[in-house]
């Protein structure tokens, strides 16, 4: 592990455990999950306190497995998980406290955004008036009021992501679990959603966010847990890695309606190392040395040229390189 990166696991976990009360924390006690003979996560011991916690790791590192375990969608092969003192096999209590925005971009057939949120609130047991109120509140929060009565199947990727977020936060959970929540959101929506997360964390709630984008987590998380190959390889505050991240250019894939204009304008920024246009001229690949400045510039360009964004994703290959730099050879030394 890089010597000035994040704090190693045992010290932080022990300290946290001593301070935090069981009914205020999410506790993984020696949790392992195997899919047949395939490892999901192994021997996870974590105590998550309130605030924004980032689960970071390359694809396949075990982030989604950990989140599915936390929300009872998977049962651990070994070990136990307690969320604010409640076991994950107690859905009637657990899901009043927890909301989960999954990564699955799928919905029940034929529903509108409002019907999805309202219908699930009714399944929670809320009466009509309260369900209606909570549904509109959630849709308002993710800026989907205007599209509320349109079929979800006709939504753009970003809108589908937002309706999933609305579903996760509609019942106002104390623990919000978000699997890659910023995927597919345009810069404005990202900023707004990040604001919501920060607001919730400031009020003492748990916001657990997974991402394979270190830069994204760097912006919002108080603490990060770095996963690799199903193991927690490090956890702690992210400050130490900030410089390291910044020194490694990140590669961003953008799909939008005015890619050539965006490409030419991005080239004017000194932090942009390379821009490659896709063959269909609706997409571009950007390499930048400064993610913060890049996203700010992107925001300004989108507004100035009225660009309609379809997707913004960080290419995984570069991220993996940063992880390898931070944790050595896939974190083997810490297993």
């Amino acid at each position, binding site marked *: 592990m890089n010597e000035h990166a994040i704090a190693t696991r045992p010290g932080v976990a022990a300290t946290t455990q001593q301070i935090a009360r069981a009914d205020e924390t999410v506790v993984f006690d020696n949790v392992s999950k195997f*899919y047949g003979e395939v490892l999901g996560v192994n021997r996870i011991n974590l105590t998550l306190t309130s605030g924004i916690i980032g689960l970071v790791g390359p694809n396949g590192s075990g982030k989604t497995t950990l989140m*599915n375990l936390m*929300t*009872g*969608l*998977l*049962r651990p092969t070994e070990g136990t998980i307690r969320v604010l003192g409640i076991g994950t096999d107690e*859905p*009637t*209590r*657990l*899901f*009043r*406290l927890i*909301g*989960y925005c*999954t990564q*699955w971009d*799928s*919905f*029940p*057939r*034929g*529903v509108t955004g409002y019907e*999805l949120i309202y*219908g*699930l*609130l*009714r*399944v*929670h*047991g*809320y*009466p009509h008036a*309260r369900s209606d109120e909570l549904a509109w*509140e959630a849709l*308002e*929060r993710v800026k989907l009021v205007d599209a509320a009565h349109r079929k979800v199947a006709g939504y753009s990727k970003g809108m589908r992501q937002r309706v999933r977020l609305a*579903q996760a936060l509609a019942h*106002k959970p*104390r623990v919000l679990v978000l699997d890659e929540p910023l995927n597919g959101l345009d810069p404005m929506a990202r900023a*707004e959603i990040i*604001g*919501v997360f920060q*607001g*919730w964390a*400031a*009020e003492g*709630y748990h916001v657990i966010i997974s991402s394979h984008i270190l830069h994204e987590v760097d912006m919002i998380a108080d603490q990060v847990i770095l996963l690799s190959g199903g193991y927690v390889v490090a956890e702690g505050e992210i400050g130490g890695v900030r410089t390291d991240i910044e020194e490694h250019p990140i590669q961003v894939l953008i799909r939008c309606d005015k890619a050539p204009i965006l490409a030419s304008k991005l080239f004017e920024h000194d932090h942009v190392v390379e821009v490659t246009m896709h063959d269909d001229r609706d997409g571009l690949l950007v390499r930048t040395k400064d993610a913060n400045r890049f996203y700010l510039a992107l925001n300004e360009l989108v507004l100035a040229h009225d660009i309609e964004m379809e997707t913004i994703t960080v290419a995984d290959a570069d991220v993996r390189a940063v992880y390898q730099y931070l944790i050595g050879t896939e974190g083997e030394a810490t297993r």
Partner: protein
Amino acid sequence: MSTTIDPVAGAARAGGDPTGAFGIDWALIRRQIGGILRLEISKNLIGGRALILYVLAFAPVLLVSLWVVVPIDKGLGGPASGAAIFANIFPFYVRVSVYLSALLLFMSLYRAEILERSLHYYLLTPIRREVLTAGKYLSALIAMSLTFALSTALLFVLFCAPWGVGELMGYLFRGPGMGNLLAYVGIVILGCAGYGAVFLLAGQFFRNPLVPGLVLWVWELINFLLPPLLKKISVVHYLRSLYPIPVVEGPFAIIADPTPAWLSIPGLLVFTSLVLIAAGWRARRIEITYGGE
């Protein structure tokens, strides 16, 4: 953007009452089942799934309508003879239309949502998995019962109609007609309940429940050829015991004493309940691993 948080957790926040009999909040469960019915019934009555249901339920009605309008001699027996023809066709209707509809509809309750990757929405709500199972089952039972009650009633009336409206009304309201019609509707609903429970469970256990469903179908189809003891291991045997108009099942049928109604009806209901309990238990063990499906 607002970041207001409702800090109160628990059933009370959802408008739930304190726990009732057996330590269970029945009012909350009623509301939750109501919520599932809202989402599921429309799914079962509109869309692709429903189209197959309607074809299986109303294709026989269309065929019989043609028989009614075609000017061929229907005999002189009157509506009672029409009801007798219906009685002989009814077992095939149950074994084909009702059976296949139940297979497609109830099997889809869990399986289709796993394939569509949307089951997790339910599993992320504060609902007991047993209650979820009961709600899904009820939604399909209501949709199928409504459809097949209408289909059965139309078939019965159509078979009795060719002798004129006056004869039909007389048979229905001054004869045994209405009693028979209601009995057949009841049998169809019991069939939906029994088969539905079995296929709901099958949809939880098998990745492709069509295969066990079709194997069971063959078992139900050849029921009349089975020895008396084996006949009893089927739904159709108990339904047959309830037929208001006796049916001859052909020269190769092995005759068995019908089970009396006072035993058949509670027997089917107990069987259905036991299968549903098993489905509820199974639902508690469901994990979301869409990638593995």
